[in-house]
């Protein structure tokens, strides 16, 4: 089974590669579901993304899954051609314009969850264009398995001649709309979710009032439109037993350490299921690690079929840890394996747990074992200090150093 990671930045891309992802997906320019995100790749980044991933033997998928207007047709062609030229593995599409042009141009197309594939006949239809399909996030595992079995039984093959592969979401944000098709953000802020500009106003608190009689409805939780995050780690054996080919992690808008931790945990879990060592004890450890990075609380989504919805209880993340920015990278001395940093805020002490992220460095978690300021050993570095510390990974000027604290 393939483990697919989100990459919203070079930091996250590097984190995905380091933590054992088999493939990554990302958007460039405006035609993707995270178009509003401040850190979007551009067309010129495509060759570099492809280069890094090819080197690491990681497959690359370009998302082009918004709704499409006439004025987008030429950028679709440009993006498709450039993706092909750069050697991107496939394009994830939902609009027929993108699907059709991809087919004409000879680029592999994957069907996005935005298409909302929920049955075998739809799989047959899209098999004319695509070898991999992401199913709707609202299906149960039983329904997923039925589709996977149906593909085998009826020998449904894609353009490559191989059986169609099924992909599902394994972890990350869910929203109240069916597979992301939501009007709320457009309605209130003119900002269309289906053009990648969702302002996530569903994540706020709301009160519901009966305007005719003025009664406020008694709802025990004000986050009535914000579901918790999907997490399948505690029943991953059942997920894999459906026979799906690809497990996708959501989160192109999230930080590199989220990608790093989540991919690492799911990598270990998939390998454990395969070698027969998947256990409750391991699940408890994985859950504790997933808890540390951004999350809105976890539930099993619709996969187990028994629950209608679990809503988030507070705004933003419920992660048990947070990062505090302290210093920027300066230099690396490879011989003694020492990194130099400049403190830009607060204090750093020996024994602190730290996180270093960077577009080339990716994600490094470590502990401060020793600190030197002006060639003297110290127990603490303060704002303005240039300090060095021993570290195995190469440190670059583009790196940022954070302290990890309980939240």
């Amino acid at each position: 089974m393939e483990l697919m990671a989100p990459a919203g930045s070079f930091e996250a891309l590097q984190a995905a590669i380091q933590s054992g992802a088999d493939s990554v997906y990302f958007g460039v320019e405006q035609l993707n579901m995270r178009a509003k995100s401040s850190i979007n790749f551009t067309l010129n980044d495509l060759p570099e993304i492809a280069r890094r991933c090819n080197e690491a033997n990681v497959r690359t998928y370009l998302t082009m899954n918004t709704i499409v207007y006439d004025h987008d047709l030429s950028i679709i062609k440009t993006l498709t051609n450039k993706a092909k030229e750069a050697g991107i593995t496939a394009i994830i599409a939902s609009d027929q314009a993108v699907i059709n042009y991809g087919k004409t141009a000879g680029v592999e197309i994957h069907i996005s969850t935005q298409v909302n594939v929920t049955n075998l006949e739809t799989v047959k239809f899209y098999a004319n264009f695509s070898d991999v399909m992401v199913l709707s996030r609202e299906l149960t595992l039983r329904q997923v398995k039925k589709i996977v079995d149906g593909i085998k039984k009826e020998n449904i093959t894609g353009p490559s001649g191989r059986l169609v592969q099924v992909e599902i979401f394994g972890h990350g944000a869910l929203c109240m709309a069916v597979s992301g098709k939501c009007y709320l953000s457009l309605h209130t802020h003119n900002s269309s979710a289906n053009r990648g500009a969702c302002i996530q106003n569903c994540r706020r608190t709301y009160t519901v009032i009966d305007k005719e009689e003025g009664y406020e409805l008694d709802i025990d939780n004000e986050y009535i439109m914000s579901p918790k995050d999907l997490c399948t780690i505690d029943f991953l054996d059942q997920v894999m037993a459906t026979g799906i080919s690809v497990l996708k992690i959501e989160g192109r808008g999230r930080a590199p350490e989220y990608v790093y931790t989540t991919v690492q945990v799911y990598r270990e879990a998939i390998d454990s299921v395969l070698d027969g060592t998947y256990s409750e004890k391991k699940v408890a450890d994985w859950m504790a690690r997933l808890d540390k990075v951004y999350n809105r609380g976890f539930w099993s989504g619709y996969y187990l079929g028994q629950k209608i919805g679990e809503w988030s209880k507070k705004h933003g993340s419920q992660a048990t840890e947070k990062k505090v920015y302290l210093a920027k990278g300066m230099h690396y001395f490879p011989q003694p394996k020492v990194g130099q940093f400049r403190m830009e805020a607060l204090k750093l002490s020996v024994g602190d747990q730290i996180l270093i992220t960077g577009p080339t460095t990716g994600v490094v978690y470590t502990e401060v074992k020793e600190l030197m300021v002006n060639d003297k050993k110290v127990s603490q570095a303060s704002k303005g200090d240039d300090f060095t510390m021993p570290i195995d990974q190469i440190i670059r000027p583009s790196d940022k150093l954070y302290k990890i604290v309980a939240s």
Partner: protein
Amino acid sequence: MVVITHQREKCIGCYYCVELSHGRWRMSKKDGKSTLIGAEENRGFHTVRVSDDEYEVNMRAAQSCPVKIINVKKV
């Protein structure tokens, strides 16, 4: 006089500005982003000076922009 500024790079091609002020904005066939007609570019900011009668429609375009990259100012 009215000064309109557009931070074009961040445009997501939603089409609102063209719909509301089609004499001043058009969609680029090249990259699917909106273009401010008559504007000059300086470090990513596209700016044009227009007469007062264009103020209202372009204000509406600025308010509708989902990524808030249009600025309209009376000078």
